[in-house]
């Protein structure tokens, strides 16, 4: 078992075109760190000194991690993490 991470189109240049990759770690930060060892440069696209980048949204099992614990949100095997760019929602 591992944690599935879904990658948006715009970041697939870092994953060799893969739509989803697998990683491990006890928190979102560790997971991103683990991915960065195999997909170099990915971490810098997702986070800066302040935490997650402004236009990057990360969801743990469909819930926005900013409301869970940010980069320190615990994750476990079997979880699904989805990365998406922030866009204008449709409801307007």
């Amino acid at each position, binding site marked *: 078992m591992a944690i599935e991470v879904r990658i948006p189109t*715009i970041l697939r240049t870092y994953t060799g075109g893969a739509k989803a990759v697998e990683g491990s770690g006890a928190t979102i930060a560790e997971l991103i760190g683990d991915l960065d060892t195999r997909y170099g440069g990915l971490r810098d696209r997702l986070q800066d000194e302040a935490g997650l980048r402004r236009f990057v*949204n990360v969801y743990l099992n*469909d819930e*926005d991690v900013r*409301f*869970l614990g940010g980069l320190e949100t615990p994750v476990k095997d079997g979880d699904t993490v989805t990365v998406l*760019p922030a*866009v*204008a*929602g449709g409801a307007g």
Partner: protein
Amino acid sequence: MRYDSLLDSLGHTPLVGLPRLSPAPDVRLWAKLEDRNPTGSVKDRAAFFMIEQAEKDGLLAPGTTILEPTSGNTGISLAMVAHLRGYTMICVMPENTSVERRQILEMYGAQVIYSPPAGGSNEAVRVARRLAGEHPDWVMLYQYGNEANARAHYETTGPEILEDLPGITHFVAGLGTTGTLMGSGRFLRERVPGISIVAAEPRYGELVYGLRNIDEGFVPELYDESVLTTRFSVSSVDALRRTRELLDEEGIFAGISAGGALHAALGMAAKAQAAGERADIAFVVADGGWKYLSTGAYSGTLAEAEARLEGQLWA
């Protein structure tokens, strides 16, 4: 109920219980039926408040051109008011929106300028900003950053819900401009200690996220994270499934974003039930299903409907 005109009938929409979808007698779901507004969506509230404010500010006179980036509903609301008040309405709308939206806009006399489908509403905002720059005499009300949008919900939607449901524990709505959640959420937080304000954000197909660079992302100026308790990303298939359940179980023929909000509401209901807590969860049905018939959302299997909806903006 009798009103002097259609515009006067804004709001005061029904809040209806969902006896079959509610998981327990003390964990109840309530739907705020915003399709019962003058043009059939929750956006009538924001549109009327934004136009009233612009009139007060002296920005509008007969013949003035109003420009707005919209995925449809706000444009329809604005076009109706503009039609009655003698303004010219131009909507910038992503190409991947349902054909009914364009037809209704044109019926109200609005001109539709399409923005490219890739990038969804982001592109509509970008195109509208460029047009506004080229036409300084046009008035862009700009729903994503207009305080009157959130204020409409602070002054109407929030108070209506609290009056009908004093024991409310959760408020759930779709996240687009964020106006509904910011306005209603602030009002309810001030009056209901411990209330949860929950956002249901549509998750679209890849086309809609087709940005050139992640730094081109967009967060509406109205958005204030501190108003929300949490935020869910709802896939098209979950939204579709719940939209159908709403019809099958409760008889409510709603637009697809209502299914998204119901999905998040049911998630909160399950959490409350597991924790042994009572809950009265109100969620927003932003519009009815009529404008989405051509998308095939209601016919065939769920998988077929999902495939047809790929790349379409459904909220």
